[in-house]
């Protein structure tokens, strides 16, 4: 216990100072935590931090799992599963090729590609908070693309980490054995979780009466049980944590207290996890920087371009496509979870690990900048004429149907207010 005090003190005091310093600018917390980690790395002994980071993973994925509502999945995902998938395969494929050409092993290149293709919902959602609340189209798109990508991420973690806990099978037997068995167990754990969600959870809530504390402890107990189960059958604890989250529905009367409890726990472990992550990076050498730049370029340039093209092909206008893509141009926290599991299992080198962490700290910060200036960037592009082909038909369409206008009313925005006014003007 006492050996934990100093590292935790550094983690929280460092984070608090940096958060206070930048509180005016409105940067998301995650990249700041990584920067704190880079700065205080020397004070944190490595063995200990890995354990802390794993705890962090478990709680973060758990909280994400609680917020997933399978019942709503289809209505949320309809908008964006295609976009998320296209982005994943195009960006992922291209980055995989780049990584391979730069001399990475296929498995390492896969990690490299995942880091490029998945976006961070912790950062993206914080940036697009107002857009999501105001239910703007690009806010909704951002949210649902993140959601679909996070689900993909869980799947990828399940597959890529399958060989993690059974290295003998992966090396001595066929690779298929090493993957198929944990995969089966993983699916089984998810099945158990769904069964608890449907049949048992309401009963557990009714047992705990009105006590906020008991409901929270019931949830934590579920988490611990699923972590133990996944450890026992040899699946990544991230899968166990996700399953535990899935076992908990938010559909009961006292869920507000559970939500705010989970929010506190999430904030607590977010700080621990991302600071620890940053602290694992040593001073980078030339190779690391070169690879990180390659990764960064594919995230900051290739990913937005692909997103914009795919969204425009889906029928969205150029502005919505641009604004959406500017909240997706960063590394996902799930890629970081994946990277650290890969490092622990010896699937990726320390070098590649550092590349991914560096790239994620940088892109999470650049993403804040592109998001803050999203409208200006869009207009700068629009002036160059790249979107003319896309936007032109709409404008022509508008002009063709209208007669020359005179003595008319111009209503800007057709929301609740605008539609009411329009009704009067029409009559």
């Amino acid at each position, binding site marked *: 216990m*006492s050996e934990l005090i100093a590292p935790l003190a550094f983690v929280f005091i460092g984070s608090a100072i940096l958060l206070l310093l930048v509180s005016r600018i409105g940067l998301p917390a995650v990249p700041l935590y990584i920067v704190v980690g880079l700065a205080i790395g020397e004070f944190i002994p490595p063995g200990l931090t890995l354990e802390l980071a794993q705890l962090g993973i478990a709680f973060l994925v758990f909280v994400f799992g609680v917020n997933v509502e399978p019942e709503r999945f289809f209505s949320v995902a309809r908008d964006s599963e295609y976009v998320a998938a296209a982005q994943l395969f195009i960006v992922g494929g291209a980055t995989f090729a780049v990584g391979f050409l730069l001399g990475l092993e296929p498995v390492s290149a896969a990690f490299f590609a995942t880091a490029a293709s998945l976006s961070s919902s912790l950062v993206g959602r914080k940036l697009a908070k107002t857009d999501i609340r105001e239910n703007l189209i690009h806010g909704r798109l951002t949210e649902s693309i993140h959601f679909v990508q996070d689900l993909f991420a869980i799947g990828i973690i399940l597959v890529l980490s399958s060989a993690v806990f059974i290295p003998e099978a992966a090396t001595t037997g066929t690779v298929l054995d090493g993957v198929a068995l944990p995969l089966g167990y993983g699916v089984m754990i998810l099945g158990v979780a769904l069964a608890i969600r449907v049949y048992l959870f309401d009963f557990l809530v009714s047992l705990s009466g009105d006590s906020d504390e008991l409901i929270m402890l019931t949830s934590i107990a579920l988490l611990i049980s699923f972590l133990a189960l996944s450890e026992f059958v040899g699946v990544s604890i991230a899968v166990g944590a996700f399953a535990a989250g899935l076992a908990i529905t938010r559909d009961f009367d006292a869920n507000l207290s559970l939500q705010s409890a989970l929010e506190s726990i999430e904030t607590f472990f977010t700080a621990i996890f991302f600071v620890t992550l940053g602290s694992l990076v040593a001073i980078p050498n030339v190779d690391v920087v070169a690879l990180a730049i390659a990764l960064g370029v594919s995230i900051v340039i290739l990913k937005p371009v692909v997103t914009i093209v795919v969204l425009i092909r889906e029928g969205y206008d150029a502005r919505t496509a641009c604004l959406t893509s500017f909240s997706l141009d960063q590394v996902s926290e799930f890629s970081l979870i994946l990277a650290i599991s890969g490092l622990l299992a010896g699937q990726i080198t320390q070098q590649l690990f550092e590349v991914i962490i560096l790239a994620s700290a940088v892109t999470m910060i650049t993403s804040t900048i592109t998001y803050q200036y999203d409208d200006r960037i869009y207009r700068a592009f629009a002036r160059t004429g790249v979107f003319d082909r896309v936007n032109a038909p709409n404008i022509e369409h508008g002009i063709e149907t209208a007669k020359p206008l005179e003595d008319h009313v111009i209503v800007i925005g057709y929301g609740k207010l605008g539609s009411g006014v329009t009704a009067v003007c029409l009559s």
Partner: protein
Amino acid sequence: MGAIGVFSYIAARYLLPWLFRQAAGDRETFFILGIAWAFLFIFASEELNLSIEVGAFLAGLSLAQVQYTSELTERVRPITDLFMVVFFSSIGLRIAADELLLYWQEAVIASAVLMIGNFAIMFFLINYEDFTPETSFLGSINMVQVSEFSLVVGALAVSQGFVGEPILGYLSLMAILTMSLSTYLIKYNHQIYDRTKPIWDRFDSPDKKDVELKMYDNHAVVIGLDEVTKPVLPALKDRVGDVVIVDRNPQTADEFADSEYDVIYGDFKHSELRKEAGLKRAAVVLSSSVQSEINQIAIREANDDAIVIVEAGTVDQALDRYEEGAHYVTIPTVLTGLKIRAYLEEYFTGREGFFETVREDVKRLQAANESGSYLTDGGKATEEVNTDE
């Protein structure tokens, strides 16, 4: 330790209020700052070879002086719960079953002595302060258990080598016995009092009375302060009396610090905060939050006789709230739209009427602007709005 205590006192006076005002706008920074403050003290105590428990306590003591305490307590509570389970289970794990029961006779006797003795002493003290026998009885019967801190001290003593594990077992057994027994004593405290009333009546005398603590009753609870709820405040004050504002914006607390309205800084989602605001006893509940879950809980927890007015972002949400029992649901943008629609109608039918209405509006805005807010003109602004329509 003295130096840390002095630092904690000075910080609570001068540094912390400023720090938390910087952080209160951002939920994450606010929370991390609280945790960091605790770790600062814990770390300093450890480096100076002092007790980290006392360090943590001093950190908490200084945090308690800040006006944002209740929100911070609620935010940190889940973490406390989590580690409390870990702590008490670890005490349980350290004690083998035979160690727990090694001194069982002593533990039973000590528990009996403690429960009876504690009750007698507390009853005597409260009674001595001239409270009524009922208050003295209820106050003392709620305190007949061992504190969890005795286990903290016990665990510390074992780790320092002052006592052996069996002593910790003895303490734990006492905690188990007294805590479980007192659960039932507290649950049925009123019944026990009624059954044994003759005994306690002997302590009664005419000059004994209970000091009433301020408790909100038949008051108004306002959730979130904005341009929608602000103009309503004077009317609520006039008609209802006590007005409690619950708001997440730290500036609101500062703005209303010396006003006749009580402000609780924090998130309405926390049940302790709702208790503090006395939601269940309120006569009027007015919410300007558009978050469905907040309004749902306000509707559900409010008294059946209370009038509940909430805000909604969309028509669907508004209809849902009506279904759930809200008395009135406002959608400000729709209301504004309707108002503009009426103005436009007026403009198209007779322009003079339209300009007259607008002039009235401008006058009202100017009045509000001069007085700084809608609050100082004693609710006139609100009444004017009503007579307009």
